[in-house]
């Protein structure tokens, strides 16, 4: 039995990072700042732009299909504004390498989960 996604076999696996609204705002601000740096590597810039896209897509997922995240929040006791933000390994590395993140957010993204 395969644990890879059933669709495109070349698609990167995206892992969820459960972030509060504040975390997501801080992440978006840090990524925008990193993108504005003149020396940002073009590949890193693509990954960072994808992170910004994912922050919007995460909110859309919760608007269209609220039940799965709500179940997790109920079980864990997390606040209502905590959502799964799904990032590929390359996107996560770009954020951790290029963006200046608050320590708590860096720990939340770097660890396997709070």
């Amino acid at each position, binding site marked *: 039995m395969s644990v890879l996604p059933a669709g495109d076999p070349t698609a990167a696996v995206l892992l969820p990072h459960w972030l509060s609204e504040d975390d997501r705002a801080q992440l978006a601000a840090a990524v925008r700042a990193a993108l504005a740096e003149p020396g940002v590597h073009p590949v890193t810039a693509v990954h960072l732009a994808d992170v910004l896209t994912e922050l919007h897509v995460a909110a859309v997922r919760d*608007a269209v299909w609220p039940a*799965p995240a709500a179940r997790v929040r109920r079980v864990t006791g997390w606040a209502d504004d905590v959502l799964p933000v799904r990032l590929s390994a390359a996107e996560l590395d770009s954020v951790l390498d290029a963006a200046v993140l608050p320590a708590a957010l860096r720990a939340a993204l770097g660890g396997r989960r709070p």
Partner: protein
Amino acid sequence: MTPERPGRSRAGLLQRLRPEPVTVEQVRAAAAAVLPGLATGGLRAALLRDPARGPVLVLAEDERRVRTTLVDLAEDMTDAGVAPTAAGVAAALTDWVGARPVSDAAAAASGVAVLDWTDATRTAVGWQVVVRRGERAVAWTPSDRADAAVVARTRTSATARAADTGGVLRVEGPVALWSHPGTPVLASAVLAAPGRLLARIADAGLGLQEPHVVVTPVRPLACASAAVATRLAGETGEACVRLPWARIPDLRWL
């Protein structure tokens, strides 16, 4: 020998596990209170006596007839966990009347085309005609009397109404969300005029490259460029259908 535990009665525990039953008398009282207000337009409701089965509730609207005994209704309400109070039973009975089949005339007069799953696998969607009843929308199944011409006319009118159903557009970064706040099932009606929706999205400031729509019946529609739609739909465990804009007109009737 196991000593008796004081204060623990087996019957008491069972009683707590079983829902308190809705009685036939409560349904009869609710019918007397609720039905006169609901029987408007072409809908008629009557409580008949059946010597063998007890009281029978009959709804009649155009060619459609629904009959059920009050005993069955009370049992169904009990199974559904309806509160055995006057208000609870009245609300459940109102719901039951609201779920009655849609007549051909009602579908022709007020049907709206929306998307629904083609089958239980929830992997494809198709059009169907629904009629709004308050916040609920009930699907129309053509009666035996409705010939192909009647079905075609009803579907054409429902498609025209669908294009004008309205809804709320919200832009979330690279995604446009389209929802119908009053009746969620009507969100997909807007796809009866996909060009108009795309123009509205553009007016809202979002130009989509290779536009796609992610459809989950009864949920808001998500419209985005191909890559973003793939990211959105590929990473949800929920059933949904991702369609290129050009394929929306190919969707068939259920």
